[in-house]
């Protein structure tokens, strides 16, 4: 490989990327989310999806679920970098445990009449999406499932008059009786 003139060692890395879902338990205090996402932007990590909410209000604990991609070495770095932040209690790699359930919720607005409208309703039924708002020319569907299922549903709605989508991002939890 021909190196450009540089004071740094420039090398190409060829390790394949993996997608991992991380659950991060943090102290719910001002700036904690900025710290976490600042880490990702500052160190050049990817965020595919991010979900945050307080989960134990008495203990002031929030749970952040992050879907990220990177080489195995980068994924390991991300976990260590998160773990060493002062307000972070715990980082769990939900993908590594292989025993986790991932869900997200989407609200999907579709506009159309006649055949398209009927077809949209029929598909929604097949996907177990609920109608949560309706007018004579539109529906808003609520659908829950893993990311792939929701992508699939949205793709099917596109030719039927898809107007708008709002998604929560991924939430994940482990199977079985044990907590995180």
């Amino acid at each position: 490989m021909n190196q450009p003139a540089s004071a740094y060692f420039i090398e190409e890395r060829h390790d394949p990327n993996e997608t991992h879902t991380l659950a991060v338990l943090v102290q719910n205090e001002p700036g904690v989310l900025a710290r976490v996402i600042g880490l990702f932007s500052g160190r050049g990590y990817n965020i595919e999806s991010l979900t945050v909410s307080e989960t134990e209000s008495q203990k002031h604990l929030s749970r952040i679920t992050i879907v990220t991609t990177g080489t195995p070495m980068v994924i390991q770095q991300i976990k260590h970098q998160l773990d060493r932040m002062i307000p972070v209690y715990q980082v769990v790699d939900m993908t590594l445990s292989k025993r986790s359930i991932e869900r997200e919720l989407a609200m999907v607005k579709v506009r159309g009449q006649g055949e398209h409208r009927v077809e949209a309703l029929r598909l929604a039924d097949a996907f177990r999406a609920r109608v949560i708002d309706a007018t004579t020319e539109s529906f808003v569907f609520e659908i829950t499932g893993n990311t792939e299922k929701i992508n699939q549903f949205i793709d099917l709605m596109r030719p039927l008059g898809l107007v708008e989508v709002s998604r929560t991002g991924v939430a994940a939890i482990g199977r079985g009786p044990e907590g995180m």
Partner: protein
Amino acid sequence: MSDKSHDPNQMTGAAMIVRALIDHGVTDIFGYPGGAVLPIYDEIFQQSEVQHILVRHEQGAGHAAEGYARSTGKPGVALVTSGPGATNMVTPLTDALMDSIPLVCISGQVPTHLIGNDAFQECDTVGITRPCTKHNWLVRDVNDLAKVLHEAFYVATTGRPGPVLVDVPKDVQFATGTYHPPRKSDVHRSYAPRVKGDATQIRKAVSLLAGAKRPVIYSGGGVINSGPEATKLLRELVEVTGFPITSTLMGLGAYPASGKNWLGMLGMHGTYEANMSMHDCDVMLCVGARFDDRITGRVDAFSPNSKKIHIDIDPSSINKNIRVDVPIIGDCANILGDILQVFKAEAKKPDIKAWWQQIAQWRARNSLYYKKSNDVILPQHAIQSLFEATRGKDTYITTEVGQHQMWAAQFFGFEEPHRWMTSGGLGTMGYGLPAAVGVQVAHPDSLVIDIAGDASVQMTMQEMSTAVQYELPIKIFILNNQYMGMVRQWQQLLHGNRLSHSYSEALPDFVKLAEAYGGVGIQVHKPSDLDGAIQEMISVKRPVLFDCRVAALENCFPMIPSGKAHNEMLLPEQANDEATAKAFAGGKALV
């Protein structure tokens, strides 16, 4: 209701800050007043336990606090105002983060109700400093202030040390609340750095060490940060195993430069024997270092045939750049102690005579060779003369960043830790002069020398005024070649000798400048005058600017060219134009 006015723990936020400093054993702080910290300055005025050193620029306060911290092992403290005061601290905070220096910065902020209003001298200090601190806090309630201050000191000094910042709005400084002394519950429950090493990993490490044929110990700044016990144990481990040892720039002094197992510094400008030992070793023990890119050279060719043991207190340092075989997380004093105990009980000194013979051959290449001259002072010669003149004295060295820094690391021998203060990770030009101020405050009777370059030193020259005000007899030893030497070296090696803006057409008369500040100026041109001038500098008990005119075009070797491995070093005798051009594959032809 009880009368709170007689409760000694009832006080203003400003008073709490001074009280917390005292409770944490702080005797000296570095700072610069301004609108948003006036209540704190008012408290400082009315007491005598904490001495405040007035700098000339907030960056100087930060670097002085760093120098203070590195030379004592105690946290350094800086106090700055809001807005520009805080933004001027960004460089020292980042510097301290990169080099793991415990620093506590207290910044003033506009009153709480004005935050977010673009008030005069307002900036988002916690937002700006979030990525350049280990942690930071904005205190909105005076009753949280004591807890936050105590936690700040704890976070800065435990685990992997680092800088922290506490931003205190002016109304919180004025408000009255309850203070409490430091207690355990002040700290986030989520913060619990691991200090004890895993016993299984330690056994694995010992069995690798005991079976080594070509071992090397590679130590770093973590050993010095850990404290005197780690240094003692590292030296003992070298003694017990008989292994060769090299060190990073940050780790110099943990093992004495006069020690018989010392290979010199490793890395881009490290010695040939250190880098070759790293490349050819079969077992590498990395203690408190982080496989930085200045150390490893080309990553895929880094020490290809070795088993690597990595001791580090920060799990994120493990497998960041280099995959290691036996990671051990924890404080290196604990882990070195455990390794020694197991090694002494179960292993015996491996026979590595053949390896030492190999190392002797590499040493014989004399990679730090340079040609002395009778006409002009060689910068390497200047450092050697300085070293000889200060041998046996109680000396502390700081540096700026560039060629002079590398020559200082190569030619000044450090026998003890905490004697060498340099900006390693961030590479901050302008670090050395204010750092020397901080070191001299901590060690008033010691000889404190900033080995400087003519370009770097001008970045924080104003702190000469601080040195004069507090009668700090720091010595600024400037290797003056009129160039930004390291920039020029890279331009010569990689950019066709087009010396774009690396020459200072105009330089101040450093002698007159020293006198203008109220210090002493010395200038020397001739090699024959050098030793006398250095003696004069040392004997003067006032701040000195020493203008040492050196060979203008000397470059720093040996060197690992970019994209090359440890065993492809460019040695000084090979560094003619043709060989250099060839070594820098892809670099443009040299003129």
